[in-house]
């Protein structure tokens, strides 16, 4: 009888090849889901982006004999959150619901554990965004699957011509559309102080930058990035209020300098305010996903041709960009959980993600860094490479206001926009910094009730 000798090396080789095959194979459904599935998903603002999701869901439905029904729900007026709240209270509704920012935390008790789905994706695609993990992994259990659709970061979007002409900065040269070609010294020098200096020059030239300071997510996110860059902790993970610190004073000083050189309307801007500012041609820079650029492409092409998306400035504690992921959750009352999980796995594969990113013209951002090499960000124009730096690259890290407090507390901090109110009290309200910090301490104390 012939016998084959199994060496340690051959076992290892087979295992590695086998793992590689598992990881790289296209997604094939292992479970034959059936029945019907209803989805309540965020209504994308990019024309045609919803169609990509519909196509993927229909493909899944045909392969698995599942009837998929999708309702697109706008986030205008928080209708998506209202719907989710209503379904959670009523215990009936869609099988799968998309949840923005803190909503997974808010509805955690009514959401099905999804460790198998997210665990499988992490195994296949590597580390996931820490912000997504903070928001959706609760007490060690994933309650939501980070989606590509609607997830975003808010890096700088600057006018190439105005920065060059009035601030002497070539943003395209500093952050070319190839990470390997970045000039490390220049990138290192791109700090909040440098940003303030550029903003002052642009203001003098009559083209101020515009960062919102209202109480909407765009405002909260950029201020969150600034605070993190200076190491500001509002409430730590053990419920200690830490806002009264030198770090806070430093960050507030940067904010004060910026407010001096921004239009006074920033306190009233909603999430579209900075977009309008850039598109109007009066503004030289904002912090936003490529939506402003995309709208400019339609409404003011000359502005769009001069837009360049690039990383945010760095502070003493690092370079932090505000991230706002979106998730899909499966309600516990769903009658077809197996099919729901199958569908979420299907639309989270890299091939599917590539279609979603393409359809959104690069706006949608997956939560896996290993997917940041998709061609869309390199290809879309004008100008070529304009949104290459939209996914966090280099030393840019993602952050969310409210972290590292326990998420119930973080949700209150974020939604009550305590950080932006601090800045408006200090600058517009002309209150003393110590009084503002005292006010913030009291507000934060209130959030601990959660």
């Amino acid at each position, binding site marked *: 009888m012939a016998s084959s000798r199994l060496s340690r090396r051959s076992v290892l080789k087979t295992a590695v090849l086998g793992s590689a095959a598992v990881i790289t194979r296209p997604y094939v459904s292992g479970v034959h889901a059936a029945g019907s599935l209803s989805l309540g998903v965020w209504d994308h603002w990019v024309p045609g982006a919803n169609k990509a999701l519909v196509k993927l869901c229909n493909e899944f439905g045909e392969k698995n004999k599942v009837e998929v029904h999708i309702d697109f729900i706008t986030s205008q007026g*928080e209708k998506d959150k209202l719907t989710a709240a209503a379904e959670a209270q009523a215990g009936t509704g869609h099988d799968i619901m998309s949840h923005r920012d803190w909503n997974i935390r808010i509805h955690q008790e009514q959401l099905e554990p999804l460790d198998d789905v997210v665990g499988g994706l992490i195994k296949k695609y590597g580390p996931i965004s820490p912000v997504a993990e903070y928001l959706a992994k609760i007490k060690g259990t994933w309650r939501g699957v980070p989606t590509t659709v609607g997830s975003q970061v808010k890096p700088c979007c600057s006018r190439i011509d105005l920065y060059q002409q009035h601030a002497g900065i070539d943003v395209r040269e500093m952050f070319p559309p190839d990470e390997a070609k970045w000039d490390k010294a220049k990138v290192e020098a791109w700090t909040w102080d440098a940003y303030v200096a550029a903003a002052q020059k642009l203001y003098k030239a009559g083209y101020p930058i515009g960062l919102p300071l209202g109480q909407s997510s765009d405002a909260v996110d950029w201020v969150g990035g600034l605070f993190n860059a200076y190491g500001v902790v509002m409430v730590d993970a053990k419920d200690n209020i830490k806002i009264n610190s030198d770090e806070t004073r430093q960050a507030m000083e940067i904010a004060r300098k910026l407010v001096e050189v921004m239009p006074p309307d920033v306190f009233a801007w909603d999430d579209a305010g900075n977009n309008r500012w850039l598109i109007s041609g009066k503004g030289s820079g904002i912090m936003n996903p490529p939506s402003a650029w995309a709208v400019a492409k339609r409404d003011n092409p000359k502005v769009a041709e001069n837009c360049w998306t690039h990383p945010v400035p760095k502070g003493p504690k690092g370079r932090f960009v505000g991230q706002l992921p979106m998730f899909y959750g499966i309600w516990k009352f769903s009658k077809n959980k197996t099919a729901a999980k199958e569908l979420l796995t299907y639309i989270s594969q890299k091939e599917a993600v590539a279609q979603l990113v393409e359809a959104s013209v690069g706006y949608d951002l997956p939560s896996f860094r290993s997917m940041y090499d998709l061609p869309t960000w390199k290809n879309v124009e004008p100008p070529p490479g304009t949104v290459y730096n939209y996914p966090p690259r280099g030393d840019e890290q993602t952050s969310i206001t409210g972290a590292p407090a326990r998420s119930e507390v973080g949700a209150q901090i974020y939604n009550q926009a305590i950080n932006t109110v601090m800045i408006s009290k200090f600058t517009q309200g002309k209150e003393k910094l110590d009084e503002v910090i005292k006010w913030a301490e009291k507000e934060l104390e209130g959030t601990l009730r959660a």
Partner: protein
Amino acid sequence: MTDDGVPDRCGSARRSRETGTRADTGRQTRMADAVQSWNSAIGAPAAAVRRTGLHRLLRRRSTIAFVMCLPLILVIVGLIVYPALYSIHLSMLNKAQTRFIGLGNFRFLLSRDTFWMVVEQSAIFALSAVFFKAIIGLITAHLINNLPTKGQRKWRGMLLVPWVIPLALSSLAWWWLFDPTLSAFNWVLTGLGLRAIPWLSDPYWARFSVILVNVWYGAPFFLIMYLAALKSVPEQLYEAAAIDGANAWQRFVHITLPMMRNIIAITVLFSLIVTFANFDIVQILTGGGPRNMTHVFATYAFLLGIRSGDLPLGAATSLFMFPILAVAAIFILRGVRRRGREIG
């Protein structure tokens, strides 16, 4: 009369036709006799007595009235009473809605500075808006009432437009006029060489703006109510006052106002309740900002309940004005009843 003593117009008429017992009473009986017949069981046919209980129940006027009102009652119970009771229940739960905490949410709110700011702002918003709506409504109602009848309808129609347009839609139009970057008002002001006004970015101007829009929207309601009241004041009173030598102001103070007091009280009460509960205008124009300085109860409740995910605290916020408004309503309605009796 039905078996339980409730007058039954249809039943008695039918009985009259069936038995003919009153056929010879002729036309002289008229209404008085007819009313008597409803209150009398004498002469009721034996067949009617034998009717089933259900049949009798269905023949009662109160039953018919109830059945006809039932759809409305169901709507009110389903969309007002149940949510109100559920909201009271919610406001007494902890954040996770797993434990009854009594008045804990209310106690917490009372300890927050921001909440007291919201109370103050809601009061400023509602009281000033209702005051200006009432004044503008009264003045315009008088102006229209004094117009020739031919032109009145046109003006009435035009002035009602703000009230007819859906509030969310008109608030969006106002937002465009106030837009921080591209304000149409500011475009005109700067075109005239004046300074632009920070309509929504300055907290005090933002307060003014939300009140202005509320007044614009609500004044036509006052106008139409006051106009109806003015039309109901008997002309003879004015004629008598004119004979006595009363001037226009005296006629207004001593005739018009007293005759309108009930309408004014009810309109103010109704508007006060609706204005305190306003959501659309503030949410669309300012979202409660800048610096939380335009939040009213409804927008703050939305922020806490829906955006921050603390439904019980949101419910407690929205219910905060309930007892105060209820007491105000009791006093105002009591006054209305008293004056009604005096007039009667």
